[in-house]
């Protein structure tokens, strides 16, 4: 908690200490990547955008890797993580946070895992039959002991998988929209309280998810010595541009609306943005994280550039986007707690390093999904000419 000297102006005494820390910034960031990656996958499966097919499986596995890590920052943050199961035992139906537990579970089990399983079933059964020892047991368990992979069964999988993806789209919207609602429904906090919050969160999630998969696609291809499908990169980059244009418009609308209406909170919030949030909001989120990547991505829509240049722009834009969306989460969560609800003062947030909610666990939690993704890619290779678990290709 900050010593009293870090307060400027007046804050209610209980407000001086920030309640939600860096870990709570991390949590919507991670679930956002999940939702975004899944939307990209559904572009291929449901909207039949053929060009992005090479990223289909990668998107799903990325979504899974991040979804598995998503509850961890929450657990680290809770005063009593051992009681967190109470949300499933006695969920308070008026609480968005409680309902989110079920949305998460639904999305994980009934949508993501099921869709991945149905899409990979043939390879899983193949790997089961061709492996020995512990790998054989593992793949057999993954197949649930069912080895029907004839044409008819695979057609069934295709149909059911398509239905799941269709259900998955509103589920993904719900997954991240709910996180936005958790903030947006707090009438006590004018920085958070807006009906646009779930929508802004959702679109920034889509933006970050697409950027993440774009980056990972180029990275994984490069690491496994595969040629990058430029039609895919160009198309994904184009969808990133569209999503970003919508996201930017929404955030601009929120800003213009606030400035125009200038309600009782405006002066206090305006001052906060111009001082305490200047670097994270104006510089990181808006200029570097939105305008620059938007400009770069927009450029390659109208100007013809070489493949190398397009790859470079896609990489740089994705990195900037990912940083910018993180800054956006920071500005929402931390920004919402830096000003007093009396509109008369401000406090400071200093990130610690090696504490339970410090920088170190945050960095580790951000790296963990990549580790899980690496494992998943080994277990379930995304591109069909490879065999699972690194078995040699049969020419």
């Amino acid at each position: 908690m900050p010593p009293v000297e870090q307060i400027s102006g007046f804050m209610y005494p209980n407000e001086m200490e920030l309640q939600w820390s860096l870990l709570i910034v991390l949590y919507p960031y991670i679930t956002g990547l999940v939702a975004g990656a899944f939307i990209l996958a559904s572009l291929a499966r449901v909207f039949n955008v053929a060009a992005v097919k090479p990223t289909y499986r990668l998107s799903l596995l990325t979504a899974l890797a991040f979804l598995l890590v998503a509850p961890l920052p929450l657990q680290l943050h809770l005063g009593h993580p051992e009681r967190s199961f109470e949300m499933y035992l006695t969920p308070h139906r008026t609480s968005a946070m409680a309902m989110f537990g079920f949305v998460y579970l639904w999305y994980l089990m009934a949508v993501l895992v099921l869709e991945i399983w149905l899409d990979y079933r043939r390879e899983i059964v193949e790997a089961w039959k061709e492996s020995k020892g512990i790998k054989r047991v593992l793949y057999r368990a993954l197949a649930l002991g069912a080895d029907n992979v004839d044409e008819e069964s695979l057609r069934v999988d295709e149909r059911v998988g398509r239905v799941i993806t269709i259900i998955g789209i509103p589920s993904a919207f719900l997954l991240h929209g709910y996180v936005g609602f958790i903030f947006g429904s707090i009438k006590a906090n004018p920085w958070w309280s807006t009906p646009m919050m779930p929508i802004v969160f959702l679109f920034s999630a889509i933006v970050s998810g697409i950027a993440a998969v774009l980056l990972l696609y180029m990275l994984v291809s490069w690491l496994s010595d595969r040629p990058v499908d430029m039609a895919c990169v160009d198309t994904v980059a184009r969808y990133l541009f569209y999503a970003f244009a919508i996201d930017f418009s929404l955030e601009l609308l929120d800003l213009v609306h606030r400035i125009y209406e200038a309600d009782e909170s405006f002066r206090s919030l305006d001052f906060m943005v111009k001082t305490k949030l200047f670097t994270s909001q104006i510089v990181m989120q808006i200029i570097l994280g939105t305008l620059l990547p938007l400009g770069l991505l927009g450029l390659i829509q109208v100007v013809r550039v070489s493949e190398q240049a397009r790859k470079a722009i896609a990489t740089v834009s994705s990195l900037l986007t990912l940083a910018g969306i993180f800054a956006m989460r920071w500005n929402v969560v931390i920004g919402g707690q830096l000003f007093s609800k009396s509109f008369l003062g401000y406090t400071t947030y200093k990130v610690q390093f090696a504490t339970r909610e410090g920088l170190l666990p945050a960095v580790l939690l951000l790296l963990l999904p990549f580790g899980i993704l690496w494992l998943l890619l080994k277990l379930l290779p995304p591109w069909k000419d490879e065999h699972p678990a690194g078995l040699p290709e049969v020419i």
Partner: protein
Amino acid sequence: MRESLRHRQHLFRVAALFVTGLLLFVAVRALLVPPDFGLYGHYRAGALTDIRKTAPSFAGRSACADCHPDISEALAKGKHARIGCESCHGALGRHAADPEKLKPAMLEIPALCLSCHTANVAKPKKFPQIDPSDHGDGARCTSCHAAHHPGDAP
């Protein structure tokens, strides 16, 4: 028919997994939810009992009169009539429970009196307040004001 079922056997296994999971959840829930949850509303009814268990530290105004009737009478006649004993003397619950064992601490005069009576622009105008540097020539408050009936001499 059997053929089409064979093509869907993996789906049935998944469904079975889900159903098992659901049943397990229901069973675990029945075991773990506190039995008095939901009695009055969406909370554990026992919480009301838990909260009521705290032992009070302040005895309350009426508790002192039994053993100190003279002071209570004097207080009732003066300007401090509406002030409870514990406003100045602190929490006396333990003293009231065992008067001989726990005697209340001596009060710090003038600090105690000044905590209310130092002049401050934010205090209501009608409230008796003084500038300590300009009142009483540095004497102890109780030299001129009887603590329990301050309008009179001690």
